[in-house]
């Protein structure tokens, strides 16, 4: 009797432990143990909130020219009342740009562009890359060869140069930039998915599914792709950072977002000649790009560590 009474709670305890520690929970627990990942998440959270509430945060319309509206001059330095700027002057936290617009408002609205670029291009690349990678991995043979050699060709070009070439053909503009950056990032996702498919498709549970008469689409969707998700999430998070950087570079070169859009890369490019005479016009967009990219990189690293089964328990 006494033995039975001792064992019961043990079983119950083990059962409750299994239930509580789902994969998601484990991942989150491990993710939030990393300081870097937390920093990345906080920055990203601020960025997302800034983008959502831009109209409430920005004191001016980002394309509003302040000539005749306020007594400000072109490329005026930041005026922060707390830092001793004349209280009678209107406050411009990041100064005035070359077209006499409030730089802070433009930076705030610029976060929308960066997030839009990051998420759109990576989503596009993931969808296309996943389809191609899955088909290549599952079908094998000549299909795989054709698809993966195409991916190799894309990978053979430096991504930014390829993006510039694509935009040069399609014409400058935000839409074409998104497409160009999306296209050049497809191969990395196709490769990830293909290798996952290859490693999984001969597993017994897949064989079992096949033996039960499941269609290839069903097997891919239900058995194989869920197992490719982990590396894909990590690659996507890091890929957003690269995409933002590439898009900013394209805008810097004049191929991306067109005036008067408050895109950080374009802002940087327009005022690149003023690095000595009006450094604030180069500094703030540069910092904004750096912080955003840093946030996604930290987040990506954190996710990778959290999702990596080899680091379990560390």
């Amino acid at each position: 009797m006494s033995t039975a009474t001792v064992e019961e709670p043990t079983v119950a305890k083990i059962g409750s432990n299994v239930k509580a520690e789902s994969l998601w929970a484990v991942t989150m627990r491990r993710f939030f143990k990393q300081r870097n990942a937390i920093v990345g998440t906080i920055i990203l959270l601020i960025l997302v909130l800034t983008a959502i509430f831009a109209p409430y945060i920005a004191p001016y319309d980002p394309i509003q020219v302040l000539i005749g509206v306020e007594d400000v001059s072109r490329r005026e330095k930041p005026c922060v009342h707390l830092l001793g700027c004349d209280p009678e002057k209107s406050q411009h936290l990041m100064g005035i740009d070359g077209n006499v617009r409030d730089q802070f408002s433009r930076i705030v609205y610029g976060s929308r562009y960066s997030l839009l670029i990051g998420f759109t291009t990576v989503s596009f690349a993931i969808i296309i890359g996943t389809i191609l990678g899955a088909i290549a991995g599952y079908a094998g043979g000549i299909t795989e060869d054709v698809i993966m050699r195409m991916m190799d060709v894309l990978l053979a070009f430096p991504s930014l140069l390829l993006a510039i070439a694509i935009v040069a053909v399609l014409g400058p503009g935000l839409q074409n930039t998104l497409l160009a950056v999306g296209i050049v990032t497809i191969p990395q996702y196709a490769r990830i998915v293909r290798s996952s498919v290859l490693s999984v498709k001969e597993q017994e549970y897949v064989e079992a599914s096949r033996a039960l008469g499941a269609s290839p689409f069903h097997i891919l969707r239900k058995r194989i792709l869920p197992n490719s998700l982990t590396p894909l999430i990590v690659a996507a998070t890091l890929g957003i950072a690269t995409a933002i950087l590439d898009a900013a570079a394209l805008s810097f070169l004049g191929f991306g977002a067109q005036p008067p859009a408050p895109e950080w890369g374009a802002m940087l490019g327009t005022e690149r000649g003023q690095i000595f005479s009006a450094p604030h016009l180069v500094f703030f967009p540069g910092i904004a790009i750096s912080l955003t990219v840093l946030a996604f990189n930290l987040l990506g690293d954190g996710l990778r560590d959290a999702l990596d089964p080899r680091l379990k328990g560390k």
Partner: protein
Amino acid sequence: MRSRRTLAVLLLLLVMLLAACGGGTTPETTDESGEGATTEETATDEEAATDEEAMTDEEAATDEEAATDEEAATDEEAATDEEAMSEDEGMMDVASLGGSLAMDNELLSLKADGCDYGGYFESIEATDANTVVFTMCKPDPAFEAKVAFEGFGIQPMEHLMKAGSDGSLLENPIGTGPYKLDSWNRGESVILTANEDYWGEAPADPTLVFRWAEEGATRLLELQSGQVDQIAFLSPDDFETVEADANLQLVPNLNPNIFYLGMTNTFEPFDNPDVRKAIAMGIDRQRLVDNFYPEGSEVADYFTPCSIPNGCEGDAWYDFNAEDAKTMLAEAGYPDGFETAIYYRDVFRVYLPEPPLVAVELQTQLKENLGITAEIIPMESGPFLEEVSAGRIEGFYLLGWGADYPHPTNFLDYHFSKDNPQFGDPFPEIYEKLTEAAQLASAEEAAPLYAEANNAIRELVPMVPIAHGAAADAAGASVQNAHTRPFGAILGRIVDSPDDTFVYMQSAEPISLYCGDETDGETFRVCGQIVDSLLAYGLDSGDTEPSLAEECVGNEDGTEWTCNLRQGVVFHDGSAFDANDVVMSYAIGLDAANSLHAAAEAGGAGNSGAFEYWSYLWGLMNAPEESE
């Protein structure tokens, strides 16, 4: 084993293929004769086109002069032995060039088939070795000012015929100027060395280097760090920096200019004069000048700056009135504006210091004042100018003009002549008055006609004149005689740099070094040091001075100009300068039937083959009729 063998065979085939490809290119790139190579190959082959190749050729003489020109005489004796050797050749070649050029009794002449072609010249004749007579179809009061222009530089006849036909003229100019070309390191610099045989005062510095950087900040940084001696086009924001720096000096640029917003009347809705007029009234030009131009700039009330005689005759431009403009646009059928584009080239110019910012400002004003939504489209400089010149820009475009010589014809006749399609269909109300005015020697007599032309421009609004920009170069404080000129390039020969090498940094690389077929200032600035024109502009005015011609004398009614040439002048290749060189230089630019009056790609001497300045300043002989 089998697969390995196959792999080995494949590898071998690959190696052979690569070797074959490599071998195939070698003879082409090193082909010196030029006979086997196409023009394009020759033109792109730097070795074949530059002196270096000849210098490295073991068979070529080590003598530098010989290396600079294979055909030209290899020593001064042969060079001064005038046409003895080259005459027969020259005569034969002149005939083969086609067009209206003829050699008679060793003297060249260019004769138009009458004056019906509409141009200025009836004939240009070498009457003896040192005299050229220009017979005009109609009087040209600006004759002297025009012949002083750098685009009309004189090069040796033989060199023009040889280098002009194989494409090498574009990067191998031979002139009589104070400097000769040493090397053109593409993308980096053009190095010139002093011409020891220069006919005028010897250059102060033995070496003149042109470098370039697109960004104003980069140029200033190079100047501040002492890497260059003078920089072109100081950014408006840097004026104060330079003035406050004891190591630098501000060098005001006195070139009269105009910045305008162009439209092409062959596209909707710019084909409607009321739309254009509404735009003219709806742009706050004062706001643009106040905020985007340096001190000293002015709002343009006329297309021609008032510093040019007769430039500001007639009524001043419309005052800014957004309400009236909006009403007028609504009456023209566009109450909510329309969608269009603003095209520009991102190149710093005195008349447009910061093109992207001005484009955005105009975009903003068009939206706010007229409801017009304009997309901003930057273009490469070359294609942009090509599209504008051909009247193919569907939208607005930002362009301007710097004076070449001090006469209204330089501003008005070029832009509004009946042959210029840049604003679409030319306006007879404008060009008829201009043609009439251009034939009057007296400025007073011409004034009423210029007033009528300016009023017609105001009424028809082919473009909106916006600003006359002020600009400045900057130079090191220790550089002596740093200057700019109101007309023409800097005189590199008078500038004295402390280290005997004057380095000038401009905003772009020269397009080619044959200025007869170029239009941009960066190219003229370099050519101007190498090649001389018949006359030259003064240091601080538009008055002309003797250059290769000691004088050009017009008859009473201005229909004949006789230019007496300077004697004893030799070109950089050692050949002697004479009247035939003048006629040949002019013939290539003026005579469209001359085989050298074409782009290098088509076997001619030019770059684009447009010879724009010749066309608009003088009119082209034998020009093909335009197809409808």
